[in-house]
């Protein structure tokens, strides 16, 4: 690819928009997963009794729910990210490429 094409893309306001949107979403989601996981680890290390508490009168504890919750959260965020990237972001991306080539 010629240097000129790359320069044209960089100058395209849509490129800045794409980068800003994608960067925001990816770091936000990464922070959410890391926050949930290390929050969980912190509870395990410093307040284990919270995770020992049963949900109701049964045997299932908040710890079990929290663990499954992290896995579920990871799935949901992954799916949301892929959906938005494969539709909205890719659409902007294709526009940028069309305009610049």
């Amino acid at each position, binding site marked *: 690819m010629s240097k000129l094409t790359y320069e044209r893309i960089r100058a395209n306001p849509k490129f800045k928009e794409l980068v800003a949107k994608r960067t925001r979403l990816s770091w936000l*989601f990464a922070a959410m997963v890391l926050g949930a996981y290390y929050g969980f680890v912190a509870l*395990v290390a410093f307040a284990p009794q919270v995770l*020992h508490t049963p949900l109701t009168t049964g*045997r299932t*504890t908040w710890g079990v729910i929290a*663990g499954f919750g992290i896995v579920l959260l990871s799935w949901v965020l992954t799916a949301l990210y892929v959906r938005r990237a494969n539709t909205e972001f890719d659409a902007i991306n294709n526009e940028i*490429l069309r305009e610049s080539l």
Partner: protein
Amino acid sequence: MNRLSTALAVPALLLTSAMAYAGPAVGEVEKQSMNLSAIAMFVAIVAVTLGITYWASTRTRSAADFYTAGGGITGAQNGLAIAGDYMSAATLLGLSSMVYAKGFDGFVYTIGFFVGWPIILFLMAERLRNLGKFTFADIASYRLDQAKVRTFAAVGSLTVCLFYLIIQMVGAGQLIQLLFGLDYLYAVVIVGALMMIYVTFGGMLATTWVQITKACLLLGGGTLMLFLAFAQFGFSFETMADKAINFHKDGVKIMGPGTLLADPVSAVSLSLGLMFGTAGLPHILMRFFTVADAKAARKSVLYATGVIGYFFMVVCILGLAAITIVGTNPDFFEGGKIGGKLIGGGNMPVMHLAKALGGDVLLGFLSAVAFATILAVVAGLVLAGASAISHDLFANVIMKGKASEAAEVRASKIASMGLGVIAVTLAILFEKQNLVFMVGLTFGVAASANFPVLFLSMFWKGLSTRGALAGGASGLITAVVLVILGPAVWKTVLGNPQALFPYDQPALFSMPTAFLVAFIVSKLDRSVGAANEREKFDDQFVRAQTGLGAEGAASH
């Protein structure tokens, strides 16, 4: 002190058993009697994989075919293959036995193995696909000094692949001895020969499909066992948990955190090593180059995350079910003494569970799948190691990019054979060694040498060649030194009474060292070369974001 040593020893045990099944079994593996249904099913699986390899060999011609299956793998297929790389025989055995022995603590570890995947998607998957060609060294050296950075990245890849191969091979030998009653020597040679056949003749296409086949078998087997296990408890998690609490020696404590993670520093260091070590494993990174574009790369991680998460949850529930089903059955304990030593060792609960739920047939099936799993993982490792030799060192560094494609493909096949022979030899030499330290080393080097260089080259404009080399080297040295001073080498191998560094996994310390040194050296680097490299970042950034100029998929 006792509590501390448990907290340190168990992560090591899990890491080893979960990665490779190498540690606790060393030296005390008993050969089981021949399990005929296991062997029959294993032969059937091998026949299928050899069929796949033959089919793949007719389609593997060019270098791109060999390294990346021509970029023609779909997102769903690649997702299954990635999941396959991650769901080793060792995760099946190691994680379920952790839950069996420790309850909730095993669950916490399992989650630590899993959460790296969404992070890889959000931060790395697209850039990897858009910038990479065959190896991750392609990306690290994209705008930096080809000869130096590529050589460093290739050596990092080779180190990780070789260590990981040895762990897997030794673990495989012991596992097969245990499950099939085959001699260690035969087991290692069979694994070595099959992996060389897959890679040399079928390249990435065969490796990927072997991995997919095994992933499906493992998922199917796991789901069937989950169903059968739940059936014993009237399909109620509450009943299963209630019974487990009644039978487990720790009682109600198994439903919450225990003593295992009482030490948060080792827990965090372990999770960092797992998470970012995964993002620095060459055979996993290579999978991102086998799909057509960034869209497919994203889909791969979506499928992989779903499959891995599901499988890990299944494994944890099987561990919980085993507390009741295996833990109260005298047939599974040595001398029929309930609560004593499990027959075959501490990693066997899920295997005994298979026998309890489906008799010899299910046990045989699961054993055969465990064997197939090892084969698929080592094949990926050999391919990644061979690519570092043929694509990075031979074609780009030694021949300076002037090697013909035929010569490169030939080099890659020779390298695969060579690596296979070395791995088999070392696995035979290390049969009786305690390899816990190698797990720390593999993930330590991946997280502290490979990952920082790769990550900074994609994300930070300021990185220069000197910064990358200094950062990578300091991460590498710190990781190696800390592993040597740590419990696995200083205490266990060298026999000193107390480790100088108390943690098995060095990532918490070695990874920041690598980033810091890379940052400082790059900042101080005012050479002309460094200025040029920074200038090239802008174009690299456009390609990383848009995929413009990325290596396209070859049509099949």
